[in-house]
């Protein structure tokens, strides 16, 4: 009799831990996906602004075909990406291309004076800020999911219930990071 009660209690405790742990994982997984959607909103908004930007720059900076094409191509690649990894890579390319475009624009005073261009520049930098915040939040959510997944006792059954791998972070591109470490961005005030 006592043995059965002990066995019953142990089974109940194990069930409680497994169900609780599973629900925590589901909630954290869902939360990470949701915060990726927040990044997505910003990325979409950025993509929507780009045709307008390209048109505006074209009117002034006629010699910058290459830079403009890079932006257009990166946008197309980002919009057409099939999976997360391609998407992240394309969006990082787009960030880089946009950076170069704004750097090039410095050489065209008329362009810089254009109100449309100024407005687009403000909007894009606002989006970049929000993007950075959303990305940080996403990465935090991912690291929390990964940490809980690997914690004892969750680690014992996480694989069995379908959470068998860590979630990938939203990284700034490898190329970007290499470039930043090699040559930190310099700001020149002598216009």
């Amino acid at each position, binding site marked *: 009799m006592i043995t059965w009660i002990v066995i019953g209690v142990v089974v109940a405790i194990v069930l409680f831990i497994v169900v609780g742990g599973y629900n925590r994982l589901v909630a954290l997984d869902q939360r990470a996906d949701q*915060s990726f959607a927040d990044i997505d909103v910003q990325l979409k908004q950025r993509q929507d602004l780009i045709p307008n930007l390209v048109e505006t720059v074209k009117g002034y900076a006629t010699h910058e075909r290459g830079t403009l094409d890079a932006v257009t191509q990166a946008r197309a690649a980002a919009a057409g990406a099939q999976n997360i990894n391609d998407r992240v890579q394309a969006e990082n390319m787009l960030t880089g291309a946009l950076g170069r475009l704004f750097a090039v624009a410095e050489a065209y005073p008329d362009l810089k004076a254009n109100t449309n261009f100024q407005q687009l520049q403000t909007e894009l930098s606002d989006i970049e800020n929000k993007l950075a915040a959303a990305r940080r939040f996403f990465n935090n959510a991912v*690291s929390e999911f990964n*940490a809980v997944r690997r*914690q004892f006792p969750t680690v014992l059954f996480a694989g069995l219930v379908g959470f068998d791998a860590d979630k990938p972070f939203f990284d700034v591109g490898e190329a970007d990071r290499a470039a930043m470490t090699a040559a930190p961005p310099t700001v020149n005030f002598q216009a």
Partner: protein
Amino acid sequence: MGAVGLQTHIWANNTRSILLLAGFPVLLVFILYGAQLVMMGFGLLPGTGRGLGDDMALAASWLGWTVPMALVVAAVWFAIAYVGNQAIIDSITGARKVERRTEPELYNLLENLAISRGLRTPTLRMIESDSLNAFATGLHEGRYSVTVTRGLVNTLTRDEVEAVLAHELTHVINKDVRTMVIASIFAGIISVLAELVFRALVHTGGGRGRSKNSNAGPLILIGLVFAAVGVALAVVIRMMLSRTREFVADAGAVELTKNPDAMISALRKIEGRSSLKGPDEVQQMFLDNQPDGRGLEGLFATHPPIEKRIEALVKFGGGQDPGPWVGPQPAGQDTSVPAAS
């Protein structure tokens, strides 16, 4: 399971809150028992006329009907507080309702946050005061209200104001006002009971005749210990509960705004500039409320120290702490000091 990020931090604090809330009924039983022992000791309640153990067992058996009675009193008390809460708060703090027309930017910030969570936008109120503070009130849908001071809106940046509004909105989402009203009602009943015990002590102990109970001394002593411990724990639990709700609201603000830095710099700005007067029920809902230098203040504070709150935001929210805020830069002053390079 320890906290490793924002969500686990919230979970840990919510579990803590439930355990603390569950402590109140236990304390109520504790102090009722103490009160009965004291009353028996003074002969106000009949004893068994036998040993101390029998008297204590008899007192314990009364709990069967005194505890339900105390719970009924608590329910009635809660019903009254539920109706009166809003009116009391409105009349005392002098908060004025703010419309979209008069403060469009502030109103939109709050409305956007509410929409993102599918909530009806709470009423926005403003106190014309230079101190930096904010609080959430209201016990049910339709009566929720978020109040900020003029000083807060003037001093903080847009992102910081948004973080503060998100903190208050998290109090609303989590129904913290209700939790704290329940806590203060329990604490209130417990302190009323304790007062009865001490009154009885002064009244009867003043040398007016002997008690009929043969175990008077030990009964009164044990009862007093129960009562004293109960009262002290009730206050401590209420304050601990309030502090866990603040941690959750800070974390919730980051969930809503995705911006731990804004919450941290907002806390840095209100640090030491938050003094605002209000009744206890309101003060515990303030954005920040620091006791003015009493002993043991950590135990009896409604809010964790700003340092602790920032530490949690840095650790679990991934924020950066800019350090104490030095105040607004005086306008027009020549800042000829070269920046450290």
